[in-house]
């Protein structure tokens, strides 16, 4: 139970960190979506259930601070969880750096397309006052995010792998003793 509470606090902190810290820096605003990186990492490295919980809590908070209609971010974060869980079902059995990168790239594209499509759809129905515009700046943001997300998720994988190897050897030694 305390582990679950800690996980929820972690999700909330990551989300607020992105809104109030990372986005304060204009050069990071269009390059990094920390929430998406954390979501992919948790879905692939932990499991899809944890990823789904992450998507729901983070999506709800993002929607409260979003200028769009409620539900857009919630939906846009849940979709990648389902897609990477089903698309990479076989690959997820072996958690390699390539699986993680493929999942991060797919999720970034799906998330951005979902926000663009849903915000525009609701804009046409007058549910949204503003919409995402498909322009060169949007495509640049997507491209920048694809590159930075690949780099960040690779670094995260290497660190996790290194730490888990270290921990594994420690446990093996203690077992032998």
């Amino acid at each position, binding site marked *: 139970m305390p582990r679950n509470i800690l996980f929820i606090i972690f999700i909330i902190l990551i989300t607020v960190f992105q809104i109030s810290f990372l986005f*304060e820096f204009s050069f990071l605003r269009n390059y990094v979506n920390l929430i998406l990186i954390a979501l992919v990492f948790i879905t692939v490295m932990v499991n899809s259930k944890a990823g789904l919980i992450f998507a729901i809590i983070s999506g709800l908070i993002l929607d409260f601070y979003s200028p*769009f209609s409620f539900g857009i971010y919630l*939906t846009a974060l849940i979709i990648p969880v389902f897609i990477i869980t089903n698309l990479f079902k076989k690959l997820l059995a072996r958690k390699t750096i390539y699986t993680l990168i493929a999942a991060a790239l797919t999720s970034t594209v799906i998330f951005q397309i979902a926000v663009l499509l849903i915000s525009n759809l609701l804009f046409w129905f007058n549910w949204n006052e*503003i919409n995402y515009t498909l322009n060169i700046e949007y495509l640049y943001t997507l491209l920048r995010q694809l590159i930075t997300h690949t780099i960040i998720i690779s670094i995260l994988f290497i660190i996790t792998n290194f730490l888990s190897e270290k921990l594994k050897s420690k446990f093996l030694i203690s077992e032998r003793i």
Partner: protein
Amino acid sequence: MKKLLKSRWGIIVIIIAGILILVVLYRANVLNPVENSVTYILKPVQSFFSETAGKIKNLSNYFQNTEELKKENDKLKKQIDELTIKNLGLEQKLEDSQIFSEELEFITSHQYDSVSGKIIGYSTAENLQIVILNKGQTHGIKKGYPVIVNNGILIGKILETNSQISKVLLLNDNHSEISAIIQNEDRSPGIIEGQFGLSLIMDFIPQDQKIQKGQLVTSSGLEENIPADIVIGEINEVIKIDGQLFQQAIIKPSFNYELLNIVTVILPINA
């Protein structure tokens, strides 16, 4: 129900139904207490993160300044370094209080009602120029109210508000449109539109009117709740094409929107 939860499609159906229910509840304002509570609880955390980011920004500015100082005066560098780091926190507070007093002076001299607040975050949509203000409906803020900085520089309008926070649409967002006038002899009218966070452009300026670089641009007062003559920026470039009905002007804002920290919302008198 258990069977439904075990199948993949069952989970998808439950989630879609859940999202739809939440959206309907939100639109029916049933989720307002939840939203208000969440934003109220998260406000101190947001302030903490935002202030930390502000300090880091100040620190990077400080290092840039130090580079210049280094060239000018190497001997004083160490002393300046020590003093600047010591006074960093103090400077931030002083800066905040100066901004507050400038905004207050503007407000009192123009006899407006107002409420000041801090920017505690940015909108979740990366490409939109929307910031989050730590004041909401409980402070008298409503949709459409103008937001100013320093001694009366218009930077945006309130887009949405709940009891705890407000979302401010900055003038440089491409969804922003505001009626303005140029401070020349003709008081040339036009509409200022944002350019994807990059600049401001004033459109629909009658072709026959004389405008030039450096002229001040202010609000026209034609829009509800936005008083006239609030400074927006100055003309940076004039775009005049023969045969067109209107001319355009690129406006340089009087304030760098990346440095937003303390802002004031102008309320209608006796709101």
